[in-house]
């Protein structure tokens, strides 16, 4: 699972796709932590775009939790957006929706991160 990241002002949108489980969570976590640390260093937020994520197991959810804690320790933020229905339900079932701010779209997550990030996203969409 290679992670692609896009910058919108002070927010970094990280695309998560495929299946996230015990088989690939170690590599995913290592990649994600690089983005989380970079974002925290820059004083920004990370938005996880989960529109391509088909399934996440408990091991995958643990990666999100570790990233959340890492960001919090460095005074950063992680928000999640655009969850597919099944992943959204898994977030609720596992009570991860009580830990993360979950948004219907990446645009709304960016707007919650900062108005500059949302404006940058809108500009890129028009272009």
């Amino acid at each position, binding site marked *: 699972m290679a992670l692609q990241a896009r910058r919108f002002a002070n927010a970094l949108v990280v695309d998560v796709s495929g299946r996230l489980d015990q088989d690939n969570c170690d590599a995913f976590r290592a990649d994600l932590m690089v983005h989380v640390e970079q974002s925290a260093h820059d004083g920004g937020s990370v938005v996880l775009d989960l529109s391509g994520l088909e399934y996440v197991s408990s091991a995958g*959810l643990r990666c999100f939790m570790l990233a959340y804690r890492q960001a919090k320790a460095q005074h950063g933020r992680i928000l999640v957006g655009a969850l597919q229905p099944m992943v959204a339900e898994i977030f609720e079932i596992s009570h991860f929706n009580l830990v993360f701010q979950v948004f219907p779209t990446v645009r709304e997550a960016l707007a919650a991160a900062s108005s500059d990030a949302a404006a940058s996203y809108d500009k890129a969409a028009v272009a």
Partner: protein
Amino acid sequence: MTFRVRFWGTRGSIPVALTAFDIRDKLARALVEASGRTFDTYEEAHAYASTELDFSITHTFGGHTPCVELDLGGPEYYVCDLGSGARPFGVHVLANQSRRPAVVNVFMSHVHWDHIMGFPFFGPAYVPGTTIRVHGCHDVIEQAFRLQQSAPCFPVDFDQLAAKIEFVKLEPDRPNVVGGLTVTPHLQLHSGDSYGFRFEKDGKSVVYSTDSEHKLENRAESESFAAFFRDADMVIFDAMYALAEAISVKADWGHSSNIVGVELCQMARAKHLVLFHHEPANDDATLEGLLKEARRFEELTRGEQALKVSAAYDGLELEP
């Protein structure tokens, strides 16, 4: 052939009880649900309560700490842990024996207080002629039993008990024959170590796996437990927390979650997951919610074989 699992205590950490407020709340919720209906007899009202109201309104999960009996239908008794549920279990044994001395085989997951606190109140221990064989893998089981009955904590010293009490050491990951059962212990992650037990009899298998944390990043650990649970007819599983709790604020507390229970049982192709060792801070509605969430997660992730999911409560009886 009899193989019945009877839950005498299902709560973790410390016993809890319904309060007057809780009872009033259940009554008020039932009245709201029944608004507009009329019942001419007690039986009609009972049938309505039994079939149409949520479990958390009409029942309680109970508050005794772990004590689970395996009833093989024979003359001897088999029980996992002696939490506060051992008191009503002892009442059951005494009533069943009608003054005949009993033979009770105990399997200790570990000796944390919630798993031994019922023993000083276990009636058969005070009956001459009773034999109690306490099986386990720890070296400190006898020491813990004696310690909790030492002055000034309890008025009856362990040596004053009338029953003949033996302590039998079991080796992990080796099948042991105890009476009518084959028992295989397995090391679990918990402060001071705990052991799960896989019980097998006449082709049926029940796994008792409580006070066990699972590190989700460790594939070898998951596979080890999947092998321990393999094709089990029933897995009684430490599901103390929701997943988010279990891997954040309560990480390293030695317990697991409903979601991990579903995943491990699916890996193992087990047939029936029974959520156990309920968090004492959770009320009946919260526990019922965790059960519904586990069932939904099982539906979402189901492979070729469906997994039945239940939540244990004090008084529940199940056949594997």
